[in-house]
């Protein structure tokens, strides 16, 4: 079988998983943003390729939104936020790289193991797409859990959303309205996050969310 079209879509979808994986072990906030922007570009390419192969022009709009909003606006906003907070040179060390990545591989395996039996009757490439999308979502969640820095957690959340878009475009016929509203909610979430980060910073002089633990009620 030497049909190039599905290979490219497969390559781009699995490239998203690899980007999520690479995000997991970045320790510098600025390089994390670069990887995130790159993932958005891969997502845009993937969606545009789906638009081309599925012959559905509205997906081009989705691709453009992904490219402009996630590849341009969000990284630029976060970068400005970091410079304002003077944390753009800071590092957010991954605690136990090996274990974090091993858990990442386990999550990717879980996504594939869960998705394959469920979608037994779907077309092969839809299955791959869905499995990879779930993997991206789980890796984004894992990033939010494993990081201490608020900015890294935001990036984790945003990459999770990339996985949602990937899942939605793999299946045919997602209404454009949904995509646009998701994109807007992401933008609004970004502003809310930004304000929150400022508040945390003002209050505690750091964006390490572990200091928030002190203000919890006593845990048993």
């Amino acid at each position, binding site marked *: *079988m*030497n049909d*190039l079209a*599905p*290979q*490219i879509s*497969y*390559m781009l979808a*699995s*490239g998203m*998983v*690899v980007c999520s*994986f690479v995000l997991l*072990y970045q320790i510098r906030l600025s390089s994390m943003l670069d990887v995130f922007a790159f993932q958005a570009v891969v997502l845009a390419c993937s969606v545009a390729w789906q638009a081309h192969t599925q012959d559905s022009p509205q997906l081009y709009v989705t691709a453009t939104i992904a490219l402009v909003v996630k590849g341009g606006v969000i990284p630029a906003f976060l970068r400005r936020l970091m410079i304002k907070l003077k944390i753009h040179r800071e590092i957010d060390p991954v605690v136990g*790289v*090996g274990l974090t*990545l*091993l858990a*990442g*591989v386990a999550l*990717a*395996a879980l996504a*594939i193991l869960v998705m*394959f039996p469920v979608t037994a009757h779907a077309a*092969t*490439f839809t299955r*791959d797409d869905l*499995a*990879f999308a779930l993997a991206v979502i789980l890796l984004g969640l894992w990033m939010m859990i494993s990081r201490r820095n608020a900015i890294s957690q935001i990036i984790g959340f945003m990459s999770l959303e990339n996985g949602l878009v990937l899942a939605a475009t793999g299946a045919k016929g997602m209404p454009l309205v949904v995509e646009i509203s998701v994109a807007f909610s992401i933008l609004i979430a970004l502003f809310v996050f930004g304000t929150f980060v400022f508040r945390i910073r003002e209050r505690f002089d750091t964006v390490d969310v572990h200091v928030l633990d002190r203000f919890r009620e006593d845990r048993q």
Partner: protein
Amino acid sequence: MEITFNNALIQTTQMFVVPLLAPLLCGIIRKIKARLLRRRGASVLQPYRDLWKLLCKDVVPAPNASWIYRSAPYIIFSTTWVVFCLVPTFSTHLLLNGAADFIALVGLLASARFALALAGMDIGTSFGGIGSSREVMISTFAEPATLMVVFTVAMIAHTTQLSLIADFFIHEPLILRISTALTLTTLITVLIAENGRVPVDNPATHLELTMVHEAMILEYSGRHLALIELAAMLKLMLYMSIFACLFLPFGMISDTSHLSSACVALLIYCLKMAVGGLMLGVAETSVAKMRVFRVSEFLGIGLMLGLLAVLLLFASEGIK
């Protein structure tokens, strides 16, 4: 495989002529690094002269050296050489192909490393011990990563024979696989770590805080040192050959009936090695050496990417 004159000739060339090029490759890399630092650098033939000088010198073993110390250089050199004879360089058609597959080659390299680590500890100096423990730490990550590479290519080509894998990659139509790209990254990480190249270890340093390979062989002299040095050069060329055979298999011959095409293939192989040496030299000059404690992270990432490659290959049932 039937034993014909051509087959025997190609295997002999692989065994005796190609290893002789290993010091040249080393010299080229050193020259490139020196030129990039705006130094003139020694001639590319300097490694041959060094080896010759060492071979002519007397061996001065430490007084408390045991037989392990004296036999280790021979074990290291012979295992590395045997592995080299089995890796397809310019021809995928080697007489001894059936002797060992990729996994066995990894095992042979591991036994060479075992001998080296033992020899490092044998004298009882602290440097040797440090070097050995670091080498073993590196190999605990590098070896599984190599095995991940083996698994990935074996799953693609349905064989663990290196020559058959190369044959498969030559004849297969171009298929885009993310696993291959990840495997490539892993193999580069392993190549750098196993040969003690710059981000992991500096082959040109004798600074005791950082050295790994040099620390283990600090006590060696004379022909013992020459053998270990030659084995290290061979190992570098070996890894680059594995790289070329898996990812750049063009130009290799699988049909041994024409010796002229074999010569062309040999030339192409030399060219590949020279380009590889150039890239390695440039890469080594442009990155800083990392702390020893970060090496495990570096290799851990390589290992995990290899694992991910195997995993994604399972998922890609549409493309096989």
